[in-house]
């Protein structure tokens, strides 16, 4: 049995989020403040917490308004449903038919069929009517007492408003209730169909107990604040030996006479040893290959008092064992690197949690482990080792073929962790905004994986190789090449300074591959700017049978014409009208690079042809409007393309409307005098000979840049050494960046710092990423 998914309503910024979990490991990613931690905290609060675990700040911001509006509900009017907001958690379990006996209390009927069993936990008003009456009574009492004071003060007694009242009284007025969900009454997005009302579990059935009997949750928090006053709640940076000995103490304190527990301790200790030896051997071997400061061939050795009775007075010690046989020497663990310690710490915690779960009386079939940001202090290789091997930790030898299963959820900001397992485990927390409210939507990348068989492998490999931070960013910029990537930071500083504080992901993909990101960008709904080249070509009609081996001739694809599609379908005889239209194979075309202003020129840029703006000729591109260049994704997020556009260029007293074919050409046209001056020789853009007018300049530049000897990287590096105030950003890039700045500013401006002290405790750590 597994936790298939869960839906949250009105929980902080997760106002309506449905989160699907993979059966083994799920990875939560998203930019900062996208609700990843809330998503892990919510399920824990509902399952193992209780109503005391909730505060008014856990309600989504729109609920606050609803609370204050509820205040004005007429006393005598019936209370409408949903007048007072509730926080709901729907848990959906995937249970094979033979295992349904574990969830009998959650089965809607003995005639029921299916495998998805749901329970809703609702943090809801005990009695809306009483709540409103109590509030009014409190208010009247406050007012009466205030009236006795000397008049003339601005003082307003508690409660000033319903929210003010609930700040104090929430725990008394709200309670947890449990409902059985009938999957047949839900659509494929796990939303109720029609006015279905789930059946409440009767009090004596004990919804909370049922839930606890099914699922056990452990949360391995991220590193805590360094000045944490409570030493018992230390983070991963604490002395590993202390952590290990606490592993024993915590268990021993409770059950000193319980030999089963002592045995479990003993066994988990052995399990720890063998796990560390076995599972992490490759990692340790790798470490030895990398070399360790000062000592050759270090090996991990855990030396602890094997007699559990003595463990309480005797701290377990982690040592490094160096050397073999008689030459063995050990180093105490304070000599451990921070990263190594963190890794061991996590392993110990996971095994500890697991050992406790296995030894539980009436062990719940499901173990859900949240690990927050395991990457802290781990260098890239260790991160990858961790994520590759962590699932092996979860295998319990005796549990083969049983009802028990472990599921792990990792929240991370590390691309090394993220891409190691491909797209399928990724759950992307996407920030959206409806009205003034900040919300989060959770996207399941495994759905993307299934739908996009064409591009997914390319994308998975690309993202893994480049370790790009697409999933953590506020916006993405797809650029043509290295030059753009190097220069963009400077250009942003020049024309769109506020963008510097946004998390931008710059992907170097080139026009030929940019369109392959379309599906992913659209799936994620990520604001994206594509900076590409116009890639103008003069079409060449190939001779029949003639091999085109001219190096200068470029082959590219354009989609078959729509008319041709229609024609093909007609040929089909319309036999298959309902079937999806038969797509014609793309047509091959050939062209030679030419200046953009050459009449009849086309573009060979696949992104421009296939994605945005979807045009084939330079003429069309020139005339493309802002609307053509922009595509709206969902809830106001947009993609915009930027390619070289014509504007007046003045040279030698003449002014012409021109654009370059590449960034370098267009840069020089943007800054003709400056770039052609002798001092700019390192840029490599100086056109020799007589330059009569702007077109001649453009021609000369095109020739120069097209030469094999032209070094693009040298141009970029040389430009970086120049005074950045002296040159202007090429118009098309400037326009693009200004647009992006506007889009991202809209998105970011209303971010209110999370008021809940419990939320995002790792915020400081996150900001470092």
């Amino acid at each position, binding site marked *: 049995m597994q936790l298939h998914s869960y839906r949250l309503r009105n929980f902080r910024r997760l106002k309506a989020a449905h989160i699907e979990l993979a059966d083994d490991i799920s990875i939560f990613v998203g930019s900062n403040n996208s609700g990843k931690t809330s998503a892990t905290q919510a399920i824990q609060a509902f399952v193992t917490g209780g109503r005391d675990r909730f505060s008014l700040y856990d309600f989504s911001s729109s609920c606050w308004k609803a609370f204050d509006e509820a205040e004005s509900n007429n006393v005598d009017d019936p209370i409408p449903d949903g007048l007072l907001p509730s926080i709901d958690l729907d848990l959906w379990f995937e249970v094979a*038919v*033979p*295992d*349904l*006996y*574990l969830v*009998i*209390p959650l*089965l*809607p*009927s*003995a*005639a*029921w*069929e299916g495998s998805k069993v749901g329970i809703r936990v609702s943090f809801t008003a005990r009695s809306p009517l009483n709540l409103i009456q109590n509030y009014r009574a409190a208010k009247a009492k406050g007012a009466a007492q205030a009236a006795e004071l000397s008049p003339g003060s601005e003082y307003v007694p508690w409660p000033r408003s319903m929210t003010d009242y609930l700040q104090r009284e929430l725990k008394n007025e709200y309670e947890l209730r449990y409902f059985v969900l009938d999957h047949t009454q839900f659509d494929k997005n796990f939303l109720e169909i029609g006015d279905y009302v789930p*059946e409440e579990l*009767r009090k004596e059935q004990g919804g909370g107990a049922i839930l606890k009997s099914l699922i056990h949750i452990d949360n391995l928090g991220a590193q805590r604040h360094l000045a944490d006053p409570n030493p018992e709640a230390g983070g991963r940076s604490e002395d590993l030996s202390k952590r290990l000995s606490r592993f024993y103490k915590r268990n021993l304190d409770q059950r000193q006479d319980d030999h089963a527990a002592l045995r479990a301790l003993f066994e988990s200790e052995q399990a720890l040893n063998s796990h560390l030896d076995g599972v992490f051997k490759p990692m340790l071997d790798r470490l030895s290959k990398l070399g360790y400061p000062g000592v050759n061939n270090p090996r991990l050795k855990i030396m602890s008092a094997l007699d559990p009775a003595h463990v309480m007075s005797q701290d377990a010690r982690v040592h490094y064992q160096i050397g073999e046989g008689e030459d063995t020497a050990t180093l105490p663990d304070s000599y451990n690197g921070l990263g190594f310690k963190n890794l061991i710490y996590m392993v110990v915690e996971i095994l500890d949690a697991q050992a406790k779960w296995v030894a539980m009386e*009436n*062990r719940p079939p499901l173990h859900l482990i949240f690990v927050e940001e395991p990457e802290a202090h781990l260098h890239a290789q260790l991160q990858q080792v961790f994520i590759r091997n962590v699932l092996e930790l979860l295998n319990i030898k005796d549990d083969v073929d*049983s*009802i028990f299963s472990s599921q792990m959820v990792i929240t991370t900001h590390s691309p090394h962790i993220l891409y190691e397992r491909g797209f399928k485990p990724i759950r992307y927390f996407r920030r959206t905004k409806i009205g003034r409210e900040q919300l989060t939507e959770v996207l399941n990348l495994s759905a993307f994986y299934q739908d996009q068989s064409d591009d997914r492998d390319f994308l998975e490999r690309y993202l893994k190789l480049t370790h790009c931070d697409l999933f953590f960013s506020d916006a993405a910029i797809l650029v043509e090449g290295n030059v753009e990537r190097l220069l963009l930071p400077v250009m942003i500083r020049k024309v769109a300074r506020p963008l510097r504080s946004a998390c931008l992901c710059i992907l170097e993909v080139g026009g030929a591959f940019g369109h392959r990101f379309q599906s992913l960008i659209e799936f994620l709904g990520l604001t994206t700017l594509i900076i590409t080249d116009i890639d103008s070509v003069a079409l060449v009609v190939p001779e029949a049978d003639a091999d085109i081996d001219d190096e200068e001739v470029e082959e590219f694809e354009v989609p078959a014409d729509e008319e041709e599609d229609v024609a093909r379908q007609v040929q089909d005889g319309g036999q298959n009208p309902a079937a999806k239209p038969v797509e014609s194979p793309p047509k091959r075309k050939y062209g030679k690079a030419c200046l953009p202003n050459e009449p009849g020129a086309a573009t060979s840029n696949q992104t421009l042809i296939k994605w945005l703006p979807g045009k084939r000729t330079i003429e069309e591109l020139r005339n493309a409007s802002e609307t053509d260049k922009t595509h709206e994704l969902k809830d106001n997020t947009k993609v915009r393309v930027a390619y070289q556009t014509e504007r007046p260029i003045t040279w030698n007293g003449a002014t012409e409307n021109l654009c370059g074919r590449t960034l370098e050409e267009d840069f020089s046209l943007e800054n003709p005098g400056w770039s052609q001056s002798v001092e700019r020789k390192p840029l490599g853009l100086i056109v020799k000979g007589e330059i009569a007018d702007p077109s001649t300049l453009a021609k000369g530049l095109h020739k120069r840049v097209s030469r094999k000897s032209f070094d693009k990287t040298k141009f970029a590096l040389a430009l970086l050494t120049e005074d950045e105030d002296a040159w202007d950003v090429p118009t098309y890039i400037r326009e693009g960046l200004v647009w992006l700045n506007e889009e991202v500013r809209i998105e970011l401006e209303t971010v209110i710092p999370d008021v809940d002290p419990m939320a995002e405790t790792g915020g400081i750590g996150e900001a470092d990423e």
Partner: protein
Amino acid sequence: MSSRANKPDTQADIDLRNCLQAVQPRSFIMKAGAGSGKTTSLIKGLSSAIQIHGEQLRKLRQRIACITYTEIAAGEIWRDVGSDPLVHVSTIHSFFWLLAKPFQNDIQAWVSERITEKIEVLEQKQASYGPRVQQRTKDKDTRDLEWLRSQLDGIAEVKGFRYGKGSDYLKGTLGHDDILKMVTYLIMQRPLFRTLLARQFPFVFVDESQDTTTEVIEALKTVGREPGVRCCLGFFGDPMQQIYATGTGLVEAEPHWADIPKPENFRCSIQVLNLANAIRRDGDDLVQVPGQRLGPDGIIPTPEGAAHLFVLSADDTRDANLVRVREWMAARTGDDRWRSDDDDHERVKLLVIVHQMAAKRLGFGELYTALNSRAPSSFKDGFLDGTAWPLSPCVKFLIPIAIAHTGNRQLEVMRLIREYSPLLEKGDLAGVTVAERLKTINELVISIAEGIAGDSNVTIGDLLRQVNDAGLLIFDPRLASYLNPDAALSGQPAEGAGSDDTQGEDGSDREMASMDAFLACPAKQLLAYQTYISERSPFGTQQGIKGAEFERVLVVLDDAESTHFQFSYEKYLRLKAPSDTDQKHIDAGEETVVDRTRRLFYVSCTRALKELAVVLFTADPEQAEAHLRQLDLFEGDSIHTHNVFEAG
């Protein structure tokens, strides 16, 4: 008490363990005759299952179900397996309720369906009234129908059903019958329900399977056949000891099941066992052999014992003759305890099919007649164990409280009131002081005690009405409707609306006549009746002694005094030809009065540890004696007539 799990293994126990040890545990039936230690084998089976599969079961949150016939047996068996929580021992009703309880929606639907069915039956009955139907019957039907319709309207409002003593749907209470019908329905109709049962309880053992209903057995077998899950079924029983008409008798083994016979008899003496095998010979093929008895000093030989048949005249000398039989047995066996004395009920167990003679002699003749002659069979069947619905409140509450009060055991009085009466429940006490309420109750108790244990002529009806009016007890709605016929909606129609016995015009008339007689009985007869059924008299009923054993047993065969049409010793012993109805049953291969009587006789005789005397009262003893000698049941020199007394 040392656990029966530690007794030595018999071959059957070894075979059973092999069934459980298989990778796919094999279902089985164990046929074990009287005195074979069937329950011991059951307990050993449970222990083996725990030992072999316990760890796995615990891990998977599964349990072993063991179904027994009574709650008392359930408690004993559970204790014998060390009160292991892995084993769920209960009656079939409790077990079924455990399975059904989580499915409240299905229960509600089933209850509505059932009420609708009853309404349809009554409507059909009304549509086909014959000319002989009494007005009283018509009125009752109209009331019942009205009542059922109001139930149907109210059922949707019921929040949560429970399993209680009698069914009261609007209060959310389901009775024993409801549970059996509903859960067999769920098992037969819902594959998910079968899967859930098999996965919760991969082992289901049934004790006394011969008296478990065919529907229940079939339902469990269906679970065993359910594809995709495994459920190991084990039935422990003896078709020869089936007592209840609703029992299934022999459970047929499915293909691939193990059929495990347990032929040992550890109880009876050699003579008694020879007779038992002779009786059994005509029933099935199980031949019992004396089991090895282990004492502290090694093997104890099986006693020789004795089994005598006396064929005597069915006249008014019956009682005197019984005394003479006992004298003769005492002289013959040299055991003085055959003779009558003050502690008679500890000396000889006298087994009779309930008969009027006992009732008359003990002083509850009218009560007996009211609920037996021409009474609905549910009354007759529930007479001996006090479960017939008119009697049950008397047996459970009124008689014990009268005895306790008379014996000045006030603690017991209060315990009974707390257990059965709503008058001391919190909800009922609102607005009344406890002192006042206690005073009311005390007055009621005094009047009950006077009625039952005193020397007044108060009738049972008077007493019950008084209790009903005061609300001291909540009566079964069927009973309540007789106490207060005007309150049409307060009672439920006779359960008979659905059962074969009271169906038709005749049925409810019979019930009404019977009830009238019952309510008019003097209340003091209840006390005598109590003495009788609590077996503090030497009389036992042949139906009520399953599983029990006694040193000396006297079985009385007497058709003339019996009003039970299901049994006839004369037919069984072929002294009387089968009736036309019997012949029809024989021709159809159905169960006959002969089969039933043979089983009753087998059960009665096998109660004897040492000596057994069987007395047949018949019209023509001489002729009967000659005939009986040819039957090869008793040894020739063990068959006697009244001549034997003269000779002695």
